[in-house]
C-alpha cells in the first residue's frame, strides 16, 4: 500500500476546509466592515478612528504585552426588557386598567402605586412581545412609556462595558488584542471607567500607590526621573513614600507613557449597534437595573 498522495490529499482537504471556514468566510463576512451609521437611533458614525497619539499608544500596549493580563472583550449572558412609565397622562385609572387588560403581568394586586415617582419601571424582565403590548396599552390610555432593552451579564455588572463586544468595535485595531486572560481587569471600556489621565499615569508608574493589592508590574521605564530645573514640570507625578523621587528630582512621563494613556482613554465599549441592541436614553435606569445582584 502506497498512499503518499492520498495522505497529501487528506491533509489538503482538512486544512482547506478549516481555512475556508475560519479564514476566508470571516473575511468575506466581517472583513470589510467600515465606519457606519448603524448605531441604533442616531446617525452618529461608529467607531471613531483613534487620534495619532492613541495609535502610538496601541503600539506601546502591544510591545509591552499588556494583552497577556488584560482582555478587551465584553461578554453578555442575556438581555432584559423593561417597560418604564414616563408620563401617566390625565386618566391614571384607565392606564392601570389598560395594563391589567393587556395581561402582561400587571394584576390588581401589584398595580397600586404604579403612578407614583415617575419615571418608573413598571415591568421588569418581560418578553419583548409583552413589553410592546403593555406599551401600546399604556399609550392608548393616554399615558407615555418606553421599552428599555438592557443587556445583562457578569462583565456588565462589573461595570466593564454596556453590551457584548462585536466585530464593529475593532475595525480600526491592528493588531486586535482581545486577550485570553484576566489577570487584570478587562479594558474594553477603561476610557469611560477611569477617564482621569493623571490617575492612569500614576497607576502605570506605581500601581500599588493607587490600588494597594495590585500585582501589575511597575512600568518605570516609560517614565523619566530628572532634576527639577526651576519650576517643577506640570506633568510631574504626585509621588509619595517609597515611590517618591529624591529631593530636587521629579518623575515625568515619557512620550510612550502619554501615548499609552491616550490609547487607554480611547477605549470605549457602549455604542448601541444593530447586532448589540441597547437602549441609550435609559442609561441611568440601565445602571440601576444592572447593579442589582445576578439572578
Amino acid at each position, binding site marked *: 500500500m502506497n498512499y503518499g498522495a492520498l495522505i497529501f490529499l487528506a491533509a489538503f482537504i482538512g486544512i482547506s476546509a478549516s481555512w475556508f471556514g*475560519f479564514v476566508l468566510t470571516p473575511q468575506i463576512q466581517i472583513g470589510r*466592515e467600515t465606519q457606519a451609521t448603524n448605531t441604533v437611533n442616531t446617525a452618529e458614525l461608529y467607531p471613531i478612528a483613534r487620534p495619532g497619539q492613541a495609535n502610538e499608544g496601541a503600539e506601546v500596549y502591544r510591545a509591552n504585552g499588556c494583552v497577556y493580563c488584560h482582555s478587551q*472583550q465584553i461578554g453578555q449572558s442575556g438581555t432584559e426588557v423593561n417597560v418604564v412609565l414616563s408620563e401617566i397622562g390625565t386618566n391614571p385609572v384607565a392606564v392601570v386598567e389598560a395594563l391589567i387588560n393587556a395581561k402582561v403581568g400587571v394584576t390588581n394586586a401589584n398595580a397600586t402605586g404604579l403612578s407614583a415617582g415617575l419615571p418608573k419601571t413598571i415591568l421588569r424582565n418581560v418578553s419583548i412581545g409583552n413589553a410592546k403590548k403593555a406599551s401600546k396599552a399604556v399609550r392608548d390610555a393616554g399615558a407615555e412609556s418606553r421599552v428599555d432593552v438592557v443587556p445583562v451579564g457578569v462583565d456588565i455588572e462589573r461595570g466593564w462595558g454596556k453590551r457584548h*463586544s462585536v466585530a464593529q468595535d475593532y475595525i480600526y485595531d491592528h493588531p486586535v488584542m482581545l486577550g*485570553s486572560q484576566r489577570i487584570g481587569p478587562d479594558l474594553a471600556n477603561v476610557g469611560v471607567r477611569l477617564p482621569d489621565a493623571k490617575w492612569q499615569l500614576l497607576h502605570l508608574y506605581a500601581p500599588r500607590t493607587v490600588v494597594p493589592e495590585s500585582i501589575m*508590574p*511597575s512600568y518605570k*521605564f516609560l517614565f523619566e526621573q530628572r532634576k527639577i530645573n526651576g519650576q517643577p514640570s506640570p506633568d510631574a507625578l504626585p509621588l509619595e513614600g517609597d515611590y517618591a523621587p529624591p529631593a530636587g528630582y521629579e518623575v515625568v512621563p515619557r512620550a510612550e507613557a502619554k501615548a499609552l494613556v491616550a490609547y487607554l482613554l480611547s477605549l470605549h465599549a457602549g455604542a448601541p449597534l444593530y447586532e448589540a441592541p441597547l437602549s441609550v436614553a435609559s442609561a441611568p435606569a440601565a445602571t440601576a437595573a444592572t447593579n442589582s445582584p445576578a439572578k
Partner: protein
Amino acid sequence: MNPSSCSSSSTVANDSLIREIDASARPPLFVLFFSGAIWLVISSILGLIASIKFHSPDFLANCAWLTYGRVYPAATNALLYGFAIPAGLGVGLWIIARLGQTRVVQPWIIAFGAKIWNLGVLVGVFGILNGDSTGFESLEMPKYAAILLFIAYTIIGIWTLLTLHARQEKTLTAPQWFLLAALFWFPWIFSTAHLLLTVWPVRGVTQSIIAWWFAANLKFVWFGLVGLAASFYFISQLMNRALHSQYLALFTFWTILLFATWSGIPHSAPVPAWMPAISTVATVLTLITILTVMMNVYRTVGRGCGQAANPAPGKFIAFGVMAFVVSWAMHVLNALPELAIFTQFTWFNVAQNHLNVYGFFAMTMFGAIYYIMPRVMDMECPCWGRVKAHYWLALLGIILIAVPLAVGGIIQGFKLNHPQVAFVEVMKSSLNFLRATSLGEVLLLVGHLLLLANLIGLAVRYARSRVTPVFVDAMTEIKPAGVKS
C-alpha cells in the same frame, strides 16, 4: 551492504543498514536536539523571571526588556519554536528514515536548515524582548524572524520529504501518515497567518479569528500529529510489537484533520455566533480522537506494561499519552459553553495549554530523544540515572504547574462570575496557586539542565571515541559497527 537489497517483504533488516541510517541522521538530529535543549533552558529561565513577577511585581521594573509582557511571550516562543517544533522535526525525520529503511538524504542540508531555524528563533526571541512582538498569541515572532523560520522549515521539510520518497520499505504506516500531513501543515498555517496578520493585515476581528485558527492548528493539529506519530512508533518499538490497529489510527488521523482544525474559536469571542458554535461542535468531536488513541495505546501495550526493553524513554512516552488524554479532554470541557463561562479568561486554559504543549508534546519528545540519541551517536547513554532524574523532575514540575493552575483557574472562574466579589479579591485568590507554580518552573529548569547535560555527555563521549569532531558529514564517515575507543 547495499540498502536496496532490503525489499519491502524483508523481515530481517540487517544491522549495518540500521547503523548507516542512524549515522546519516546524526548531523541534523544533533543540531536540532542540542539547540532545542539550549532553548528549553532559556525558556525556563525566562519563564522563571516571569513567574517571580507575581511574587514581587516591582522586580526588574526599570528594564523594558524584562517586563512581564515581554518575558512571558519570549519564554513561550522559546519553548514552542526553540524546542518543540525542531524536536518534532528531528524525531519525525528519524522515524521516517527508520521506517522507510533508507538513509537520510543529504543530511548536511537539513542540519544547515536547522541552523537557519535557530537563527530565526534567536532573532525572534530578541525581537519579542525588544518590543517587536506581533501581539498575536503563539505567533509573536516578528515578521523578520518569521521569514527565516519559514525558509528553514521549507529546507528541512523538503529534504525530509525526499528522504520519505527514497524509502526502501514502500508500505506507509500510521506514524508516516501523521508525519507527512504535519510536514505540509505547518508552512501552510504559518504563512497564511503571517501574510494575513503582519504583511497585509486584514481588518478588525478577522485578525483574531485567524490567530485562533493558527494557534489551534499548531497546538492541536501539528503537535497532535507529530506527538502521536512518535507515541505510536516508540510504543510499538519499546513493546516490541506492532500497533494494535491501523484502522483506529486512521480514525485518529482523520478526526484530527477534520475536527481539531476547527477547534480554535473560544466561546467568548466577539465574532458572529456561528464561529464559536462550529468550534464547540468540532472540539466535542475530538472526543473520538481521544478515544481512538486511548484504545490503540491500551491494546498495544496490553498486559505488557512495564516490560519495555528500556524503561526510561518509555516512561516519558507513557506520561505523554496520559497528558494528551487529560489535556485534550480539558479542551473538550472548555468548549462547552456551560463550562466555558467558568474557565474563560482564567488560568485553567493556561494549565490546559501547558499539559498539551509540555506534558504531552515535550515529554514525548524527551522520550524520543533519549531513545534516538544513543543509537544515532552509536553509544550507550552515559547515565540512565540522570535520565530518570530528568523524568521525575519534569513529571513533578508539570504536575506542580498544571494542577495548581487548573484548580486555581476554576476558583478564579467562579469568583469572576460573581460580580459581588471585587476584582482584587478574584486576583488574590488565584495568586497563591500561581506562586506554587514557581516551584514547578524551578524543577523544569533543573530537568532541562539535566537534558542538556545528558546530550553534552553523549557528545563528549562521542568526540572522545573518535578523532574527528562531532560535526561531520555522516555520509562520508560511516563506521563499521562496534568499533569503540
